């Protein structure tokens, strides 16, 4: 609730918005026959700051007019959403349509608060597997996300050119490049390793790419990934402050020219573009050994339908979610604010239209959901991960022991 770093993470990982026109005429929301008497739906989301807030509003309005209803929308700050949902759940006042960050969907679905969408004519066909994993619980689909995001490696083109360094493809190259790019007042590399879920999220590309798995955090693959973070900080190629930085702070460092490379997501692109002096590009996260595939976590929010005694209303809400996830809508949302459509069929078209998203487009195909394996137990693993990172980066434990220590072993 209070931790603003979580807030920053959520708000950062959100970044999606809408374009009115695109959610237009043939928006794909085939209105169901039942809900003719439903005239309005309540919606809750966490896009509480402009420009997202008003852009999302336009998109919602567009789907509303297609369905011939009005919407009553409420927005709350990112890190208070779950709290709000809990409060509304206990007073039985959940909205008709609820937006949830994708790793939260299973946890909320597990409490029995959400309606399965399969029964109401929705499915996850064509959607990248990671996102379907994230929004399914016990074999049923509980939410659909129109757009997604992930994280990759940003680099400052001028700095790399000046140092004669190619964008790194392996961890060794990454370490060497980071070292070479480091000079007084500037670090070669920046990432976020703070003690929140955000810190775990930034660690996942290294962990998953190397074959590490959240079901066995004491494996050598996970330890090797942690060693990468440790090496970068120990060698002075990354600031010791990474243990307190949010992704927003990391971006600040990059923009201020105090970091030559950073791990971050596409939602930072608008603010990067506001600083035309910074010439940047993105590549996939490097691999440990040649032949590995970069695997990064999936971000983005899913729209869900809380259980409702009023069947007609519930169906209407499901139709609304369906409209939000139409092809046209996905592309429009993705373009407006540098996120990626969740349907694989749309990705190629999108990346040709928005070339700066190319690396993210590649990265997202193999991306995994955080809750894909552990489901609603993921938060516990995530906590062990960020605590282990903190132990290792502060020298309180070696990379090998950190996970054992963090999990209380």
């Amino acid at each position, binding site marked *: 609730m209070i931790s603003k770093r979580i*807030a920053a993470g959520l708000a950062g990982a959100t970044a999606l918005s809408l374009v009115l026109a695109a959610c237009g005429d043939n928006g794909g929301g085939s209105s169901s026959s039942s809900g003719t008497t439903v005239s309005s739906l309540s919606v809750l989301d966490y896009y*509480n*700051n402009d420009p997202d807030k008003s852009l999302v509003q336009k998109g919602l309005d567009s789907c509303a007019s297609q369905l011939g209803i009005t919407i009553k929308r409420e927005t709350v700050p990112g*890190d208070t959403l779950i709290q709000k949902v809990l409060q509304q759940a*206990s007073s039985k006042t959940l909205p008709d349509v609820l937006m949830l960050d994708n790793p939260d969907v299973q946890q909320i679905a597990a409490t029995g608060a959400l309606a399965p969408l399969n029964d109401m004519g929705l499915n996850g066909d064509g959607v990248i597997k990671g996102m379907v994993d994230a929004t399914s619980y016990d074999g049923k689909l509980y939410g659909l996300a129109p757009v997604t995001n992930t994280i990759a490696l940003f680099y400052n083109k001028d700095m790399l050119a000046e140092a004669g360094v190619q964008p790194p493809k392996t961890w060794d190259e990454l370490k060497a490049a980071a070292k070479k790019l480091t000079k007084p007042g500037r670090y070669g590399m920046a990432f976020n390793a703070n003690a929140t879920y955000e810190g775990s999220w930034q660690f996942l590309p290294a962990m998953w790419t190397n074959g590490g798995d959240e079901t066995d955090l004491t494996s050598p693959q996970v330890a090797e990934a942690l060693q990468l973070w440790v090496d970068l900080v120990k060698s002075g190629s990354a600031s010791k402050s990474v243990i307190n930085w949010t992704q927003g702070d990391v971006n*600040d460092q990059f*923009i*201020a020219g105090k970091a030559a490379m950073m791990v971050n997501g596409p939602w930072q692109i608008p603010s990067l573009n*506001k600083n035309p002096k910074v010439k940047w590009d993105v590549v996939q996260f490097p691999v440990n050994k040649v032949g590995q595939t970069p695997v990064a976590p999936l971000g983005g929010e899913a729209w869900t339908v809380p259980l409702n005694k009023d069947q007609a209303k519930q169906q209407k809400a499901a139709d609304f979610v369906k409209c939000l996830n139409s092809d046209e809508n996905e592309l429009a949302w993705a373009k407006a604010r540098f996120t990626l459509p969740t349907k694989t069929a749309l990705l190629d078209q999108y990346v040709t239209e928005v070339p700066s998203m190319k690396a993210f487009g590649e990265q997202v195909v193999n991306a995994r959901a955080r809750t894909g394996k552990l489901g609603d137990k993921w938060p516990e693993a995530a906590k062990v991960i960020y605590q282990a990172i903190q132990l290792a980066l502060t020298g309180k434990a070696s990379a090998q022991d950190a996970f054992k220590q963090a999990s209380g072993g």
Partner: protein
Amino acid sequence: MTDSTIRRAVYTVIGVLILAVMLFPVYWMVNASLQPSGNTLTAGFLPLHPTFAGYKRALSEQGDNLVTSMIIAAGTVVLSLAIATPCAYALSQFRSRWVSVGLLAILISQMIPGIVIANALYTAYERIGLLNSIPGLIVANCSSGIPFAILILRSFMLSLPPSLVEAARVDGAGLFRAFVAIVLPISKNSLITAGLFSFLFSWSDFLFALTLTTKGGVRPVTLGIYQYLGTQVQNWNAVMATAVLSAIPAIVLLVAAQKYIAAGAIGGAVK
């Protein structure tokens, strides 16, 4: 001129220096708020190219929140004083062994973490519909205002001679009328002090604002700053400008009411 004049001047200089060190973070806040946008990462000691863009933005985006905070703080003052003043009078003038029990209860109340209060109030508010409302926040903020006001007012009222009220009583005035007509006017300074602190406590409240509002409608400025911190790391000057704006009431009240913050009024409160 004389030795002592020089010495006193030296003291003033030392005093200013001490204050400069103590208030450096406040200065830094002002400095950061005047830096051109971007971030504080490269900020120097002085805002060499001051810009008021941060303030412009803060005022347009947080102006309403400042007003909300003002209303809540003022309401807290009125309600806290209305409840605390008679009680303080009772605890100072009525003879009873329960007085010490009452004081102990106030002491215990200070031990309870705010978050415990906030959690309980949330469920209660939900039932009676006080969530997201200004009255709800006023009542919650009274949890810091009332005990503090009782202590301050009581310490002053202890010094009131009982004969003062007795005289009025002889003329036939009821206890309450005597209290209103005699005790209140005479306690003006300590009422102002108690009110001032209630105002400032309420003004700087963050926890209740965060937990007891769930919609955008009622949003005190501390919550506004918090949301800035979460989402606007790019605009440190606006964040800091809001912070400076939110500190202004504290500064103005302190300077304006300086003579009322009689040291004794606070000092005696805890005896």
